[in-house]
């Protein structure tokens, strides 16, 4: 019997590979009870092994016990599909610390694929989350979604097709996001209201926006100190398919790196190319829909100490998203020109001494376009190089603490 089940699983896996699928491939439904019981019975120190195969679930899974590892046989071998999900806002929800998940895939959830809420010492390694029928507004919001976690390592994972962010790290502390791949999401990788994040060695391509570093109002903690370095961020030109009202819905297609209202962000050593709106955008909350409505009074809406240096820029800015940006490009650079590599909305804290508190650029020929947001975009201009010819003290590398110290 066991052999038969495995044979069927192998057959469906083959079938899935053999054709360009229009609907998600089905999976073995009998495994749901097994895994659910393992998650319920889990004790600290347990390793829950998910065999190779394609397994179907009709409702969400959750784990509430600290110290558990969930391990599959590979992100293309152990596949949990939620295409027929009828209940639950995510595929797998973890509310626990000292948790490791590796070598499996979660596909076609109705909401988020993998959510990890309020835990410490979290490792996510070689996990794939995917909506298999392409980028669509109906897809779930987040692929891999740790929120309010501390001491996080996310590596070698893959996120495809999220209608919000593929890899989304929210309201967290001390995180390393490295060597992952994000494509065909609205936001490839998003760091939000998070302190001390190192984001490196990742590939972000074919998203609407490649890598985002945001602060949102009305939350318990703001965020600061993110380093985005040595990433490949290219051709993030997919039409925005996010839901209106979400923070990412205001991201123009063709955005490489976007910083919004965050402080102390370093962008260096990346290969950023062919993002059609702009390779780097630095903005305040006032330039995006997320600034609508009421903000808590202690929220700082201005980006500060954003440092762009030693990146490899190529192409991009040649076909920005939306009529306003198109008109702006024409006015600034003419029909054959391009928006400079760094676009800044021009908002500054009234207390700031000048643009050098906001944005420093040490990046060869790269120029900054100030779109003059505070004056209704009346006089957008390419900044004199001297204006942003400054430097901020470089941030230290993020060091994961025990038990994840390397």
């Amino acid at each position: 019997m066991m052999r038969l089940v495995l044979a069927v699983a192998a057959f469906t896996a083959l079938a899935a590979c053999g054709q360009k699928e229009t609907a998600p491939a089905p999976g073995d439904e009998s495994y749901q009870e097994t895994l659910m019981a393992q998650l319920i019975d889990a004790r600290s120190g347990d390793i829950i092994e998910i065999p190779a195969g394609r397994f179907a679930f009709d409702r969400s899974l959750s784990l509430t016990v600290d110290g558990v590892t969930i391990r599959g046989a590979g992100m293309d071998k152990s596949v949990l599909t939620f295409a027929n999900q009828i209940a639950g806002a995510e595929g797998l929800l973890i509310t626990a610390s000292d948790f490791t998940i590796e070598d499996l895939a979660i596909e076609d959830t109705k909401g988020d694929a993998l959510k990890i809420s309020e835990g410490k010492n979290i490792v996510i390694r070689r996990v794939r989350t995917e909506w298999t029928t392409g980028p669509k507004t109906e897809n779930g919001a987040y692929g891999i979604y740790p929120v309010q976690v501390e001491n996080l390592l996310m590596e070698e994972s893959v996120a495809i097709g999220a209608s919000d962010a593929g890899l989304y790290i929210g309201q967290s502390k001390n995180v390393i996001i490295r060597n992952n791949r994000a494509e065909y999401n609205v936001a490839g990788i998003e760091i939000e209201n998070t302190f001390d994040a190192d984001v490196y060695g990742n590939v972000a391509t074919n998203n609407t926006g490649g890598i985002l570093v945001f602060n949102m109002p009305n939350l318990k903690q703001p965020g600061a100190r993110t380093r985005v370095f040595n990433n490949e961020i290219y051709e993030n030109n997919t039409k925005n398919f996010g839901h209106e009202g979400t923070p990412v819905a205001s991201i123009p297609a063709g955005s490489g790196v976007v910083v919004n209202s965050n402080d102390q962000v370093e962008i260096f050593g990346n290969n950023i190319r062919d993002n059609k709106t702009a390779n780097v955008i630095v903005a305040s909350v006032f330039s995006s829909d997320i600034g609508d409505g009421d903000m808590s009074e202690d929220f700082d809406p201005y980006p500060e100490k954003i440092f762009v240096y030693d990146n490899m820029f190529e192409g991009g800015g040649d076909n920005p998203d939306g009529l306003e940006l198109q008109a702006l490009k024409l006015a600034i650079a003419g029909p054959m020109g391009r928006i400079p590599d760094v676009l800044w909305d021009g908002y500054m804290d009234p207390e700031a001494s000048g643009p050098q508190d906001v944005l420093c650029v040490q990046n060869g020929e790269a120029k900054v376009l100030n779109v003059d947001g505070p004056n209704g975009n009346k006089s957008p201009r390419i900044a004199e190089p001297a204006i942003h010819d400054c430097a901020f003290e470089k941030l230290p590398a993020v060091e994961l603490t025990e038990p994840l110290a390397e």
Partner: protein
Amino acid sequence: MLRFYCICIVFAALASCSERKEPAPVFHAEENPERLSDWGMLAETADELVISDGVTPYDLATPLFSDYALKLRTVWIPNGAPAAYNMDSVFDFPVGTIITKTFYYSVPSNEWTGDVTIGRERSVNGNAIALDHLRLIETRILVHRETGWAALPYIWNEEQTEAVLKRTGAVIPMTLHRGDGRTEEFGYLVPNVNQCAGCHASDATARVIEPIGLKARHLNKASSFAPGFNQLDYWLAKGLLTGGIAGPAPRNAVWTDESEPIEARARAYLDANCSHCHNPVGPADTSGLNLEPDAAGPALGVCKTPIAAGTGTGGRVFSIVPGDPEASITVFRMETDNPGAMMPELGRAVTHKEGVALVSEWIAAMDGECSRSG
């Protein structure tokens, strides 16, 4: 003493095995019995569900909506150990306390077809409810052990004679017949044990399971089971509850009581249906949205933009737009039945149209407007 106690348990178990008569409450300090009857809270006869002696039924001013399931709630405390009153939080129940919640439906036929109707809760006559045209679905146990509260779902069998522990939960296909003649097929969700914590661990940092409804503001109402008594007064008189109640106890409105102000009814509804997650320390504190009775302004959702709502925005920009329920995300999330967008995230598959109408009426009556900068 201990030995005596153990013998009692054995005796009670034996008794329940034989004739199913005179069931007596049994606190299982560690093990999770396979059968609901082993707890001795409820017993089923051919035509009645009987509440055991010493077990107290109760109800809430405004309850959680669960796909139109009707509910019978009971509480039992070990002898002589009343719960301690708290003004805002769950009463402090002693170890040994057992709470049950039985989910059932009015059904058009005594033969189970999966068809259910929107009915009214059965009144308790004597100590029993009649089972005629009624289908028992599940009974959830919350038991207070030395190690804390534990949540256990029991599913009633086809014959309706016993409920059996099903820790992995279940989905039960049903067809809802609304009053207007329309029908909807849906999957009724019995949560698994971990999902119980999704609502009952309402402090996401402590992650400790506790009851939700057993707070003063939910229980402070005319008793449905002891005519003429306020439910809290009845509990005090009965020795279920102790502690100085300084000043008037907080009170949630009955959401269906049209003599109450619309705001009080809507806020009671949001409290009962949302605040176990949407509170300042709850699992939904990631959203910055707080739906406890004292929340106000952006925290309550007024002109608040979402954080991570994804599909849940429904294309709308603010949680609540004063005067405009159809532009309010809150209403969208209550209306939709997409699991990736709906609220609450668990325990609802169909739309509670009456709840939506209530919250919509409240928002429609609000003054003010939201500004958009974009």
